[in-house]
């Protein structure tokens, strides 16, 4: 059963060939057996899931209508609220925090009868590209346990790659869904900014954050988008649009599509990575697409823009963690000031402290124009360059990550780590839909990803191109050998 896609699990349940209870039991058994190796999950909702499964079996037996994700086990990154359950954000600060409401995404998944399995590991407050910054545990790449699964949604990516669940959800502020998807050989989709509600997602960089699916199959990502891509009154940036038939649009022909390649942004690719990328582009050529060169040289500034804006927003968003109303309160604190200072000192890890300090610095008097205002201007430039590029193509292709999965502990320089997201960050800065799909393996046998970006609200085109690539290339069927057993 672990090899099945989310759609296949759902269909077998619809037909009565698999009971929801059987699916839930098998999922928990597999996690118990396999997750010691990869460390994807921070918490499991075993009892809650079994109760829901029993109710779903009764619902099906009674002939009542079933949801689009009926009996599909799904995992949620531990910065998405599930009422009554822990939301730790991978931080000591929130190690005992229980959500007091459901995220909109959680509600929509529940309404469509998904089985929420539990919460997955992440870099603390989603700040990182390796999941090494979780306060609780390391998550290991199912393809090579010495390597990172990427991040910050590394737990969700590892859970899907190891076939613990066919579908998981993450959040993507600068590549946190797509980079781990690439490093673990699965699909990861970041929707257009505003397509999915952020209500109940613990905020990091509010102008950049977006929830999206991670899956083995592009069709499952499209199905997930039909469920979560809905307007929400509780998120002021939620787009007031009806849900789209993303699955139905997948099979529309691709022939004639123009794919843009920004070679002047890819000058740092080494020979081997460039050859691999060119092989992926050939797949599109063989599918009848035309490749056109586009000028996106300005994207070289994306990392700098991102680390000014995202940290500025993070420093503001994380000001709420003060040790007063919820979360960690230092036992050493005797005064109000000490509660703030000591609780934050004890509760936050080094990467979070670094980003709060950087964000506070770029917003502080005397530096705001030089850093924050300048970055917002370059963000405008990047958006304009994307718009110009999309006049001559429908999608833009790049690799997802400059490297395959790196060894845990290998990257210590923060700038070097930030550069992991060089190809994924631009889509967040411009609010564009983007996907990473498995494109093969590096010579050391570790997965690589192809990254496709579309104009705003062209989520369906991005998914369609990814689907055709997947069906031709076939890398989505590869399972890490360590986890390819029942």
């Amino acid at each position: 059963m672990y090899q099945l896609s989310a759609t296949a699990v759902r269909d077998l349940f619809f037909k009565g060939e698999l009971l929801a209870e059987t699916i839930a039991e098998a999922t928990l058994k597999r996690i118990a057996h396999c997750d010691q190796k990869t460390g994807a999950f921070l918490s499991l909702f075993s009892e809650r899931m079994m109760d829901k499964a029993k109710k779903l079996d009764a619902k099906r037996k009674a002939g009542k209508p079933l949801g689009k994700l009926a009996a599909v086990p799904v995992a949620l990154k531990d910065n998405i609220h599930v009422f009554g359950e822990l939301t730790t954000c991978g931080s000591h600060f929130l190690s005992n925090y229980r959500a007091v409401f459901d995220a909109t995404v959680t509600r929509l998944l529940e309404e469509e009868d998904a089985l929420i399995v539990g919460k997955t590991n992440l870099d603390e407050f989603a700040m990182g590209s390796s999941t090494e910054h979780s306060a609780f545990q390391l998550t290991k790449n199912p393809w090579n346990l010495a390597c990172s699964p990427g991040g910050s949604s590394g737990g969700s990516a590892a859970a899907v790659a190891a076939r613990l669940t066919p579908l998981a959800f993450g959040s993507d502020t600068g590549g946190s869904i797509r980079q781990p998807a690439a490093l673990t050989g699965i699909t990861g989709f970041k929707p257009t900014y505003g397509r999915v509600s952020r209500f109940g997602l613990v905020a990091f960089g509010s102008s950049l954050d977006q929830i999206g699916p991670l899956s083995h199959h592009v069709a499952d990502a499209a199905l997930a988008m039909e469920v979560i891509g809905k307007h929400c009154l509780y998120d002021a940036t939620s787009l007031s649009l009806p849900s789209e038939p993303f699955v139905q649009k997948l099979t529309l022909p691709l022939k004639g599509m123009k794919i843009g390649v920004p070679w002047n942004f890819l000058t740092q690719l080494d020979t081997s990575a460039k050859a691999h990328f060119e092989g992926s582009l050939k797949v599109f050529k063989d599918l009848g697409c035309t490749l056109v060169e586009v000028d996106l040289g300005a994207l070289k500034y994306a990392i700098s823009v991102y680390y000014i804006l995202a940290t500025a927003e993070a420093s503001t968003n994380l000001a709420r963690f003060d040790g007063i109303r919820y979360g960690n309160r230092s036992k050493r604190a005797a005064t109000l000031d000490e509660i703030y200072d000591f609780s934050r000192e004890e509760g936050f890890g080094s990467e979070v402290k670094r980003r709060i300090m950087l964000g506070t610095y770029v917003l502080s008097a005397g530096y705001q124009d030089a850093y924050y205002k300048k970055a917002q201007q370059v963000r405008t430039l990047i958006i304009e360059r994307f718009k110009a590029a999309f006049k001559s193509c429908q999608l833009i292709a790049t690799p997802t990550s400059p490297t395959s999965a790196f060894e845990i502990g290998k990257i210590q320089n923060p700038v070097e780590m930030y550069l992991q997201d060089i190809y994924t960050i631009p889509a967040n800065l411009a609010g564009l839909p983007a996907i990473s799909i498995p494109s093969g393996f590096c010579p050391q046998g570790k997965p690589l990803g192809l990254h496709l970006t579309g104009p705003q609200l062209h989520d369906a085109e991005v998914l369609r191109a990814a689907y055709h690539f997947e069906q031709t290339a076939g890398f989505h069927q590869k399972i890490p050998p360590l986890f390819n057993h029942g």
Partner: protein
Amino acid sequence: MMTEEEFLKLAKLCRISCTPEEKTALLKSLTQVLGYVAELNTCDTGSLPTCNTVLENPRTIVRDDTPGDVLSRDLFLANAPAHTGGMVRVPPVLKGEQ
């Protein structure tokens, strides 16, 4: 290069106190990152406006002013580190308070 004095001022603004080891590591890495992002000075932005939203058709969105479910006091206090009499408890703010 960020000076130690600047760092201490920043830490105070952020409400983050650091151990001496943390201070050394953070000072070094903040200097590295600020050195990197200085590349933006080479980008000619001329009179480009700042980006205030990525949404192509932003609207002012205000929900209807109708009463709805709100968080119950008990549920809220269940996450509070300390509470008393239905309120969050904090150390005395003014001298002489209990």
